């Protein structure tokens, strides 16, 4: 058991089975589906709300997740706790196997775009905006749609899953294809 925890990588089938079993528990005991991206809506709403509460209480999208002035919903709920604890879970997993990184620019990015931290951070920030805009437009992310939705045989989730992979493959090849391919 201890040696397994110290191992750097587990078989993807073991990890996939673990996530599948975790979904049984969240559906059965918590009446929830594993998901992540809604928490980003609550966080954005919280930040905007600190500037102007009236604004978020009148925005139809924030109202869906944070409620109205008369009937507000909690910000820090089930999924918010889940997202916060993702950090600790991953930290402990990497600490146990001494695979904690101090990565600022990934190697393959360096080969393609140079070693600049600023360029990578700006690229990651802009890509983060794109990722979340897409997730909310589709109604979920890789967890909520890709895993939880697909396992429920939801039509929306399988469409999302398919489109994600097509766009991801095309984009990665445009970025890293040809010369960069050997470095990936």
């Amino acid at each position, binding site marked *: 058991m201890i040696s397994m925890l110290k191992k750097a990588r587990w078989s993807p089938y073991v990890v996939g*089975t673990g996530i599948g079993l975790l979904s049984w528990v969240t559906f059965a005991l918590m009446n929830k589906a*594993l998901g992540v991206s809604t928490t980003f809506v609550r966080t954005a709403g919280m930040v905007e709300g600190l500037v102007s509460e009236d604004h978020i209480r009148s925005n139809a999208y924030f109202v869906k997740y944070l409620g109205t002035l008369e009937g507000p919903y909690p910000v820090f709920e089930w999924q918010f706790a889940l997202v916060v604890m993702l950090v600790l879970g991953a930290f402990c997993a*990497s600490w146990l196997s001494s695979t904690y990184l101090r990565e600022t620019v990934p190697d393959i990015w360096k080969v393609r775009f140079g070693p600049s931290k600023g360029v990578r951070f700006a690229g990651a920030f802009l890509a983060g905006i794109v990722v979340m805009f897409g997730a909310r437009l589709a109604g979920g*992310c890789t967890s909520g749609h890709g895993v939880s939705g697909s396992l429920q045989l*939801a039509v929306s989730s399988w469409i999302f899953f398919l489109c994600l992979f097509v766009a991801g493959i095309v984009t990665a*090849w445009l970025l890293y294809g040809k010369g960069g391919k050997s470095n990936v």
Partner: protein
Amino acid sequence: MFEIFFANPTTILMGGIAGFLFGFLLQKGGVTRYDVIVGQFMLKDFTVLKVMLMAVMVGSVGIYGMRALGFDIALHVKTTALLGNALGGLIFGVGMAVLGYCPGTAVAAMGEGSRHAIAGVLGMIVGAGLFAEAYPWIESHILSVGNFGKVTFVDITGFSPWLFIAGLWVAGIFGLASLERWEKNNQS
């Protein structure tokens, strides 16, 4: 403001435990690594697909199995809005290939020590805010196109869920076994 900031402690505790285990699994699976995610899209490293397919196969049996056994398990299906799901998936895929993470793996990557994932997570908060601001227009112009409500393949076909789950398992086992064989033959 935000008089009720926290939900009740039990739900927070359970969400926290689920998050811890989820983050632990993602790191051990290697899907918190930039090169693994990009490698998937380059069709050089199939870790992401293996993890996701396995999770969906195991998950589907459990959820529909418990329902068949009479347990009161509610489904949490997201709305099918064809244009929104497809366009959202495409936009998401473009961003994910550049960022090298999806929302869950970006947050877990922060825990693993990838500093650049923090920039990605900050961008995601901004992205969520931008979407909320654009929502009124998007709701009437995009989410209304091909909107079928919260439907599953069981709802639209009338077939048993087990037909789909059996198909998923057969295709999954056959596909993954072929993939393993192909990877073994292409090791250099």
